[in-house]
């Protein structure tokens, strides 16, 4: 069996990532979720590695250039490259104070590191508690902080990032590599969460740990083993027992005979002794990280510093956050602003790098000054060389990892080299290099690809003709569009301008112009309707895409309700394959699997959907959710973006292939690599969803093998579909 088709290698901005085995990823990606598995540092590292867990991740999975450490704060073993989980350049840009530098004198560095991490943790955990419980007493805040300090000590000696001597940025990986980050999120139980960034991103890691810890902290109030709500030590111990052992273990710490009593004792020791204070010179040392900004999920946050925010002398050169919501630079006596702090990069490119930390003056202090607010699209479009803006089309020059956020967690698939995509969003970072990321849709999912810097962006993506775009989400000039809402869409004199007329549902119009505006990438189409020129709102891209609710291309049909016979589906979760719908279990098909649909069955009051498929030699039925009542089909399986070549499509062969009279039948001839052949029909059969195309070559008609779908698609190894428009 040929190996998987996943030829990408992903360049991070600073370093070349190592290959990620998509095949293994798929096998690992069974559904698992829930709570954080906590592992006592020493037990974790020296304990058993044979665990029957939902994800059979091997030890040190995706752990590159592993290094050891020592059992002291900031450097517990082991640590592996942040790549490929996250982008090391992003970490270095944003979290420099909390990276332990292995290349300097150890004692002084530990002192510095602990001071910084203590300040960051102190603020982060307090922020979390007060966000969840605004009326928490000061005593509770202090107790909560202490409990979280002890937890971080118990887990990893407050270790997270390390700048190692091999020149690579590391993150802690305990328990044979299964535990990720300061709170040790275990990849055997939480693989999807780690894919979302809950391991490598220090704030995501801390928040994810606190979500469970807080729940247990609150439940502990009514636990029989906790004497009173303000017995903070008991509450901390109960919360840790749950955190470490599960919801049923809230009083585990009272049982000295429990198998895991040692963990509870270890936690109590740390809670009582507060050893970390030995390394913290100033317990009130202010963190330079903008904790509130990171805790609220913003991708990039500038540093903060205690200066008088209302003094105009402190404004020039800094990022100034106005109470009205805009983020600004104070230039020439006026505020030059954008709506979203994430777009400050545009102003920095225009006005130069910020020379100080960010500040937030009061409304009274800024009221007397002029404020100019720039739309992000026009601002970036003018400021960044070679940037493709929303709606434009690009060709992916190479396969590039698709990430959930710019520089964030890889989603497990890549853009296709040569394929044309529509840009749905852009993000730019670094004033000088102007690293850029584009949001695209691939595999029916939205994600970001890295697209190079100002000096090499052409190596990653290039502008492409719109005519080559197959997946049109934002129609362009000269396209014919159709109004979707039953109540029609208002025609306005300008985007969000005065009402001109109502264009009824189904009306077909030619696009004269396309305008994209605002922080949600809202789309407006300039059209003519009954001799009136104006603009129609066409939906938004970000925070829940609504484009197709408003406008569709003329002739475009609404997306398929569900997959049908002949389609390829991709499982959103692990699903049991049964001999008949609801029948006997045959095998569990893992999440992410691509399967050819032989037939579908819909039955029952709620239209329960079943797909007939083959997996690993078993042919049977997968439950696919219900179509009526609460639609649940997306929870089970989605139409895959990977499709078979249609009759009439041309295939470019990527290797020599044998043409046979029937699939796996007698040999006719060998067709050489590089040949283009026209597809007559396709057949999917066999235990691994083997794909065959019937083609004609040199007067002979027969079948060629074109790869298989399971356990991972190899179609790309054999041929490439050439769509000739």
């Amino acid at each position, binding site marked *: 069996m040929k190996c998987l088709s996943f030829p990408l290698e992903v360049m991070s901005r600073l370093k070349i990532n190592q290959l990620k085995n998509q095949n293994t990823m798929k096998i690992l990606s069974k559904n698992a979720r829930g709570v954080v598995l906590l592992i006592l540092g020493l037990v974790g590292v020296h304990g058993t590695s044979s665990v029957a867990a939902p994800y059979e991740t091997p030890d040190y999975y995706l752990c590159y250039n592993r290094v050891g450490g020592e059992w002291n704060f900031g450097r517990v073993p082991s640590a592996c490259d942040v790549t490929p989980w996250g982008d090391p350049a992003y970490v270095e840009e944003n979290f420099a104070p909390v990276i332990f530098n292995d290349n300097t004198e150890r004692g002084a560095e530990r002192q510095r590191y602990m001071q910084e991490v203590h300040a960051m943790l102190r603020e982060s955990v307090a922020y979390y508690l007060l966000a969840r419980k605004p009326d928490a007493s000061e005593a509770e805040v202090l107790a909560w902080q202490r409990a979280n300090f002890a937890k971080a000590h118990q887990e990893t000696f407050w270790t997270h990032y390390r700048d190692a001597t091999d020149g690579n940025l590391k993150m802690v990986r305990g328990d044979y590599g299964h535990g990720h980050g300061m709170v040790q999120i275990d990849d055997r139980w939480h693989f999807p969460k780690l894919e979302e960034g809950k391991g490598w991103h220090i704030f995501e890691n801390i928040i994810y740990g606190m979500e469970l810890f807080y729940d247990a902290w609150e439940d502990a109030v009514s636990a029989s083993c906790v004497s009173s709500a303000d017995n903070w030590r008991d509450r901390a111990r109960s919360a840790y027992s749950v955190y470490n052992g599960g919801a049923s273990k809230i009083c585990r710490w009272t049982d000295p005979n429990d198998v895991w009593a040692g963990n509870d004792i270890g936690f109590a020791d740390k809670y009582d002794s507060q050893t970390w204070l030995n390394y913290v010179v100033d317990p009130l040392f202010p963190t330079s990280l903008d904790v509130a900004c990171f805790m*609220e*999920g913003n991708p990039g946050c500038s540093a903060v510093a205690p200066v008088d925010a209302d003094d105009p002398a402190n404004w020039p050169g800094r990022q100034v956050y106005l109470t009205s919501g805009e983020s600004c630079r104070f230039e020439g006596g006026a505020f030059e602003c954008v709506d979203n702090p994430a777009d400050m990069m545009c102003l920095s490119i225009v006005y130069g790098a910020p020379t100080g930390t960010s500040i937030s003056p009061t409304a009274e202090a800024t009221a007397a000054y002029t404020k100019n607010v720039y739309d992000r699209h026009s601002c970036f479009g003018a400021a960044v060389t070679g940037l493709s803006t929303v709606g434009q089309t690009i060709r992916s020059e190479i396969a590039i990892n698709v990430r959930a956020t710019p520089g964030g967690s890889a989603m497990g698939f890549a853009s296709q080299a040569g394929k044309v995509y529509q840009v749905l969003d852009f993000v730019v970072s670094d004033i000088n290099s102007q690293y850029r990321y584009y949001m695209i849709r691939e595999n029916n999912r939205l994600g970001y690809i890295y697209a190079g810097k100002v000096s090499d962006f052409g190596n990653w993506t290039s502008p492409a003709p719109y005519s080559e775009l197959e997946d049109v989400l934002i129609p362009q000039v000269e396209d014919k569009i159709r109004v979707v809402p039953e109540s029609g869409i208002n025609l306005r004199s300008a985007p969000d301008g005065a009402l001109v007329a109502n264009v009824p549902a189904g009306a077909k119009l030619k696009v004269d112009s396309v305008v994209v505006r605002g922080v949600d990438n809202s789309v407006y189409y300039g059209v003519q309707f009954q001799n009136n020129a104006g603009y129609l709102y066409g939906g938004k891209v970000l925070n829940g895409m609504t484009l197709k609710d408003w406008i569709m291309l003329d002739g475009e049909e609404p997306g398929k309700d569900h997959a049908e016979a002949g389609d390829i589906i991709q499982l959103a979760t692990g699903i*049991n394959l049964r001999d008949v719908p609801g029948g006997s*279990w045959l095998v569990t098909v893992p999440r992410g699997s691509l399967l050819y649909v032989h037939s579908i069955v819909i039955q029952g*009051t709620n239209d329960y959907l079943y797909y007939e498929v083959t997996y690993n030699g078993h042919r049977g039925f997968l439950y696919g959710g219900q179509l009526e*009542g609460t639609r649940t089909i997306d*929870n089970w399986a989605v139409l895959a973006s990977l499709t078979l070549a249609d009759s009439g499509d041309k295939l470019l062969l990527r290797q020599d292939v044998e043409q046979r009279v029937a699939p796996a039948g007698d040999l006719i001839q060998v067709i050489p690599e590089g040949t283009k052949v026209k597809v007559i029909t396709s057949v999917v059969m066999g235990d691994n969803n083997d794909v065959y195309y019937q083609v004609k070559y040199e007067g002979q008609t027969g079948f060629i093998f074109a790869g298989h779908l399971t356990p991972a698609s190899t179609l790309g190894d054999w041929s490439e579909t050439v769509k000739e428009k």
Partner: protein
Amino acid sequence: MKYLYSLIVVVVFASIFWGMRSEVPAVSEAVEKKSVLSSTGGSPSLQEPSAADLELDRAVTRQQQLTKGELQARELLARGISDLANCHQTYSCPQDFSDPRASDIKQGRMLADKLEEYADFHRQRDYFDEESAEVARTFLDHPDGFVQEAAIDLVSMQAPSEANGHALINALKDGYDAKVMEQAMKELQRYPGLQPEIDQLLAESLQTGSFYVAQEVALNILPHLNAENVQMFEQVVSGLPQHSVRAKALKSNIREFRLRQSGG
């Protein structure tokens, strides 16, 4: 409250079995072995009806009642769920000492599997009643996210009822599983009569809920917005940290709602 759920399970299943005993003869061990197959990987499955009995191409008509054999089969499934859910009382929980949390996780996965089997049984027959609703409600606030998902799935298959809606809303209070909230918000769209309670749940989740749940609520709130509640959510957004992910998503969806109201 969640730690009392085992007690509730006992009461629920005791009442179910009490009712069963009054109308169904005791099931022999031989019948049990024949009617329920154990499959590998913790995925037991019903064998009945056989493939020959199924008419795959035609919609199954909603069944009015279960046959005696089906009642017996359902009792076995329910007993399996009950036994596992109450395993702490009977010291029969699955054990896995390879890791501190492994036993709890193992129990949760097995319970979710059994609930899915229970749901499969009812879905295949297109038969749901108060007993199946009660089983679903019992597990909506289980601490394991997989179990919650299976319970919500079972609720989704049934006609909306006030009891189911209230149980789901209560189960989501103080939850920290964003995926469960996403799934539940779809289901809650079927309960317009409970919109005030749903609004309160969503508002509290946005303001003081789990960070990840709040983000999920803000991203998926559009179908829940209406002319009556939009102002309330506008007030909510004004009180959130203005550049937070939840505030940006909520603001975005309120604007989208307003545009839909006004025709764009």
